[in-house]
């Protein structure tokens, strides 16, 4: 019944220098879901959100993204919605710390990413313990396209990723 190991690292990077954005391209279509894991911090502008664009061949820069979100910072809940946006917003309450001892933990699930009939639902969880904007947040995002995703670009909205930030992309294949 079981099909063997299926949580497969596709690509990983540890940023050697300050980096404004990072792109995974030519992502194989052989998996069912993708999981992106980011563990790192910002080079400047404490509190920058982390955002993402996806596409097929190149990233879609149109207003084809939307997000429904909720979170909390230990004293209050937070919520919101973004429609017809130019990117998915993985963090709105929490913001990247610039402290290497308080890295951001981000996990993103790109569900059924290779489908050519379904618009893409993207779930993300992000946590930030230190810095000016600590908290945790869960978001449901939509890329309103039926194209398969083979390109993912992720970047801080206001700043850059610091050297040492680790970004890994995994593929999960269903039986």
């Amino acid at each position, binding site marked *: *019944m*079981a*099909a*063997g*190991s*299926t*949580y*497969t*690292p596709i690509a*990983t990077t*540890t940023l050697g220098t300050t980096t404004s954005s990072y792109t995974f391209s030519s992502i194989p279509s052989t998996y*069912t*879901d993708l*999981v992106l*894991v980011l*563990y*790192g911090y910002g080079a400047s502008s404490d509190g920058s959100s982390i955002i993402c664009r996806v596409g097929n061949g190149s990233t879609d820069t149109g207003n084809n993204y*939307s*997000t*429904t*979100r*909720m979170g*909390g910072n230990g004293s209050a*809940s*937070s*919520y*919101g*919605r973004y*429609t*017809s946006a130019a990117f998915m917003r993985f963090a709105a309450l929490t913001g990247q710390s610039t402290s290497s001892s308080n*890295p951001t*933990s981000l*996990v993103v*699930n790109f*569900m*059924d990413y290779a489908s050519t*009939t*379904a*618009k893409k*639902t993207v*779930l993300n*969880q992000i946590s930030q313990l230190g810095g000016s904007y600590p908290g945790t947040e*869960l*978001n*449901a*995002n*939509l890329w*309103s396209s*039926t194209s398969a995703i083979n390109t993912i670009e992720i970047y801080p909205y206001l700043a850059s990723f610091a050297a*040492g*930030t*680790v970004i*890994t992309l*995994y593929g*999960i*294949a*269903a*039986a």
Partner: protein
Amino acid sequence: MSPIPGIVASQISGHLASPSSFESITTITLGSAAASVSINSIPQTYTHLQLRTKVRETGATVGGQCQMRVSGDTSSVYTYHTMYSTGGLVTAEGSFNYTWAYGIERHTNGNDPANVWGATIYDFLDYTNTSKKKTIRTYGGYDANGSGQIRLHSALYGSTGAITALYFENQGAANFAAGTQFALYGIKG
């Protein structure tokens, strides 16, 4: 920092699990609309289970959502706590002694834009243990560019019996749409 697969994977499932210990067990993809989905004869050889779903229903009732039963148990042993937002104020609720695990996820239905699907990730922890009641966590929802819901949910299956089967229906009695997918994975300890 360097990538540590065990730590990285733990952020997905909540447990230390290297990628090589994550195995596909079975996948159900509906070729036509169906009233229910069953996953039976679940192997008892893993430490945890993860279920990853892509769901839409054919009905047009307000808000699609699943209800679940475990191991064919129809008694009043299901409890839940949930928090969610539809883009507005975060809502928390819970109840107990139900005959179903209610509200365990949210998905799209006939009122929502075409081709938009709900997605939910379920974690069934220590599912073979016969001395513990079972805690189940789900996380997911959907966004439809102006509507949608994000949800974090915990359910208790108030039995010490091992989880051997899962059964899903829509709470509004609508069918699951063709293309609905339930993919079950096992995580080794």
